[in-house]
């Protein structure tokens, strides 16, 4: 009897098997043929292991970077990249992540069902990453397993309802359509950019009326853009660390610049591997979630990934990326000057989130809205990780971190509650947000106030 129990516990604590079982459950609920169920289960299982393998590659590239940075500047340098930090965290918090993701999707459906906020968050990788961050922060509170998964899942379900809701007034303006919402992890920043745009600009002077060079479109290829920017960053750090230090301690005699470039490529390779794994993990889970939610919440509004707004303003996409990135570089110099942990501007968050912030800023404030909104967004995603890392326990020291605004808002909210009042404060805080949503539904007020609550 005992050995059966032990095997069950081993299954539950082997996240690769656990996510495969979640996929099998989803496929079963949709009454798929047995061959599909088997295939889906196996692919999800392998997908998780692919992500773990990618984590090893990323770790191999970040460790020497940290050493070079420390030697060169005597400070901690952090590369924000969601894929990197999630993969690193999954090796330790995989079980909680998988269970919180499952609970979070269930709560998302429940909240959409009982409140007037009908958003169903279909951006699977964002749900996975957010589940992972919540798992890390909840683990710091030392809560026991069952409440941890339930409260963490509720927090995820709430986040996946509130973030599409706060961006919706602007999303509607962009897509001219209230049946689709935006579900990406920078929604807080996009809404803020849209809000700022209203005050600083004029939406009649749209970014789309100017002739903007299209030459930067190759940056949409994430392997190219990551290798390029990481190559520049690694080379600069290597120049400051010096050939002596690197060839003696890290590269085993290889020229320091060549070594730096190879490590930068390794980082991109790790992200490439992780993305392939994440795709395998989500391939069965997301369609299952979509199918089930459509049945249970008939009038649901799907919240979708950020590129859905890109075709509405391609110029704002590039302007948003560039000004957000400039915001990141300005922040970098402020951090160096003030001697805090240094957040290296990551091209991926600035691209996807900065671009979307640009589209939102343009929708309310034209060119000036896009520029100012994205710039402020870029500054926010640079400084937020400094507040977020201390609440992430030992994950705060991995050389990478979450960067998009919604991770910061959610993570700092939960983390600060845990700091102030431990488990009880976290539970009370999460329940208070739920009560707020139910209250807003009952009293039918306008849905603008929860922006403050989430922050």
């Amino acid at each position, binding site marked *: 009897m005992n050995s059966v129990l032990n095997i069950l516990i081993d299954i539950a604590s082997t996240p690769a098997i656990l996510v495969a079982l979640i996929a099998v459950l989803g496929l079963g609920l949709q009454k798929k043929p047995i061959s599909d169920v088997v295939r889906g289960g196996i692919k999800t299982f392998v997908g998780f292991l692919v992500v773990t393998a990618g984590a090893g590659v990323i770790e191999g590239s970040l460790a020497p970077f940290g050493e070079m940075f420390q030697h060169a500047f005597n400070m901690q340098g952090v590369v924000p990249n969601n894929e990197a930090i999630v993969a690193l965290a999954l090796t330790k918090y995989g079980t909680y992540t998988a269970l919180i993701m499952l609970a979070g999707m269930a709560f998302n459906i429940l909240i959409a069902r009982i409140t007037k906020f009908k958003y169903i968050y*279909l*951006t*699977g*990788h*964002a749900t996975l990453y957010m589940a992972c961050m919540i798992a890390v922060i909840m683990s710091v509170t030392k809560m026991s397993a069952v409440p941890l998964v339930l409260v963490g899942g509720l927090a995820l379900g709430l986040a996946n309802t509130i973030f599409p809701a706060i961006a919706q007034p602007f999303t509607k303006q962009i*897509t001219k*359509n209230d049946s*689709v919402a935006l579900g*990406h992890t920078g929604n807080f920043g996009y809404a803020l950019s849209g809000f700022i745009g209203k005050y600083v600009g004029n939406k009649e002077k749209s970014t789309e009326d100017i002739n903007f060079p*299209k030459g930067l*479109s*190759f940056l*949409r*290829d*994430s*392997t*190219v853009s990551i290798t390029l920017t990481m190559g520049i960053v690694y080379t600069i750090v290597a120049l400051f660390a010096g050939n002596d230090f690197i060839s003696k301690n890290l590269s085993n005699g290889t020229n320091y610049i060549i070594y730096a470039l190879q490590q930068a490529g390794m980082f991109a390779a790790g992200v*490439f591997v992780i*993305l392939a794994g*994440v*795709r395998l993990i*989500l391939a069965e889970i*997301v*369609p299952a979630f*979509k199918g089930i939610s459509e049945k249970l919440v008939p009038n649901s509004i799907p919240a*979708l*990934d*950020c*590129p*859905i707004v*890109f*075709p*509405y303003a*391609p110029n704002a*996409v590039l302007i948003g990326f560039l000004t957000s990135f400039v915001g990141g570089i300005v922040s970098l110099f402020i951090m160096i000057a003030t001697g805090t942990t240094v957040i290296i501007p990551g091209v*991926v968050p600035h*691209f*996807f989130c900065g671009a979307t912030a640009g589209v939102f800023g343009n929708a309310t404030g034209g060119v000036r809205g896009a520029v100012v909104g994205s710039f402020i967004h870029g500054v926010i995603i640079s400084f937020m990780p400094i507040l977020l890392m201390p609440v992430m326990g030992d994950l705060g020291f991995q050389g990478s971190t979450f960067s998009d605004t919604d991770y910061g808002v959610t993570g700092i909210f939960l983390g600060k509650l845990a700091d102030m009042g431990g488990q009880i404060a976290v539970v009370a805080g999460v329940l208070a947000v739920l009560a707020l949503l139910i209250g807003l539904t009952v009293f039918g007020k306008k849905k603008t106030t929860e922006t403050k609550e989430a922050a």
Partner: protein
Amino acid sequence: MKMAAVCGSGLGSSFMVEMNINSILNELGVTGVEVAHYDMGSATPDLADVFFVGGDLADSAQHLGNVVILDSIIDMDELREKVKAVCSKEGLL
């Protein structure tokens, strides 16, 4: 025949377009079409017979050969028309 949706990182929006293509194919009663999604970096012309991309990626997708550009990737009616057109060209309808 194989169709594919492509986006920047091959995670969210291409996956959504893939699911939408699947439900449209179901609606039309077309079978035997495989649908996948890729990121711009790993998509190569041999991976599918036709690629669907959003208008903002039209320039980056030229190397894929047979590309269908979507003006809006959330417009089901547009997607339906374009999937239909591909299917009739291939003699699947």
